[in-house]
């Protein structure tokens, strides 16, 4: 599992794709919003939690189709499927690798972008916490979507249509956590719910994703 994780990470870093790209995408989304709604800091501060979460979510979405696609095309997914490691474990490793390459950098970059949107002071810590708790779920749900569409020639758009509705609970609880923190309320309840959803996704989605990969490899 460790070997596979290192392989996936090495591929992600050296191909130069995912890592910087999703961060840059996150930046551009956050930069575009003030152009759309105007530069008043008051307005921006109100919508900042939602923008940051939606931006992170879209940035996560960008690199999903690469989770299985390259391995599927060159046949290494078949090799992985016949390896002694159960397919559920392989899927989980893929999810973790995707999170390390996109979710974690997004979490670390989010406070800086929060500054751009004049996010209120107490919310920064909770922004990091909520992204840290929520983005793994986004990556794992992404492996499920990627597994469903891996056999398709142009699955990218379909992948978004399938995965985005699954992101709704995570988004609601994540953005609500930051919003409550920004307004000075206690964010504990949505943060706990977010963590709960995330933990359930991490535990269960690999089974669904592995089932989808098996069907596609048949």
């Amino acid at each position: 599992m460790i070997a596979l994780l290192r392989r996936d990470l090495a591929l992600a870093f050296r191909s130069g794709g995912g890592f910087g790209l999703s961060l840059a995408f996150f930046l551009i989304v956050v930069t575009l919003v003030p152009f759309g709604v105007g530069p008043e800091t008051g307005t921006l501060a109100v919508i900042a939690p939602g923008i940051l979460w939606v931006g992170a979510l879209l940035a996560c979405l960008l690199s999903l189709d690469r989770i299985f696609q390259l391995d599927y095309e060159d046949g290494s997914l078949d090799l992985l499927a016949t390896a002694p490691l159960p397919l559920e474990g392989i899927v989980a490793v893929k999810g973790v690798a995707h999170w390390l390459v996109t979710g974690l950098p997004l979490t670390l970059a989010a406070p800086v972008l929060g500054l751009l949107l004049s996010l209120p002071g107490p919310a920064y810590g909770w922004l990091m916490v909520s992204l840290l708790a929520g983005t793994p779920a986004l990556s794992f749900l992404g492996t499920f979507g990627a597994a469903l569409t891996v056999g398709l020639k142009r699955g990218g758009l379909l992948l978004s249509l399938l995965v985005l509705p699954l992101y709704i609970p995570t988004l609601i609880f994540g953005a609500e956590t930051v919003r409550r923190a920004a307004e000075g309320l206690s964010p504990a309840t949505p943060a706990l719910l977010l963590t709960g959803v995330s933990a359930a996704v991490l535990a269960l989605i690999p089974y669904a994703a592995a089932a989808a990969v098996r069907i596609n490899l048949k």
Partner: protein
Amino acid sequence: MSIWEYANPVRFIQTTDRILPWVTGATVVALIVGLFWGFFLTPDDYRQGSTVKIIYLHVPSALMAINAWLMMLVTSIIWIVRRHHVSALAAKAAAPVGVTMTLIALLTGAIWGQPMWGTWWAWDPRLTSFLILFIFYLGYMALWSAIENPDTAADLTSVLCIVGSVFAVLSRYAVNFWNQGLHQGATLSLDKEENIADVFYYPLLFCIAGFVLLFVALVLLRTRTEIRARRISALLAREARA
């Protein structure tokens, strides 16, 4: 009689040949009685005026929008577990009907909401959940049409339907958490002593029966079409090989 007999498409077609005219007839009768009674023979509500009558389309279609997804879930599980081919096709056949029901519920709700709430749309939990349900239907149908191999498509859409159901329910409660509602409580429920007033209640029951029958009739019809389309593609494939 068991559902396994109807895993044989020929048996399914034979049986539905006999059932379908009756279901269709009953649908027409129930809808005509229910809608006519509802639209012309019930009094106006003292607060909502005649707009209340949209309930005869709104409530049954909303009910069927959810039940159609539920039926797809059950048929998907039957397909995944026991490779019941007609079951998979029935799930495929139900999706467009379900999405139409969802759309009718959303549209009639908007038409009613405009004069009553003063807005076409509000981000109320129930409305939002229905919009999410609508998107789930779209994704499900898109996945069906994207995959060429019919068995792979049936497998993958079934997995999506099962996972999607979990998340649809989860979204329903997450949305509740996110915003408080404008929508009134349930109009009908089995565990309440008193539902809406009897004058509105009986025609509504006819309308609901009509929508249920309509759904059954459409799904049977569409499943038969799917079976025949499958047979045609099999024949074409055989011809191409010969």
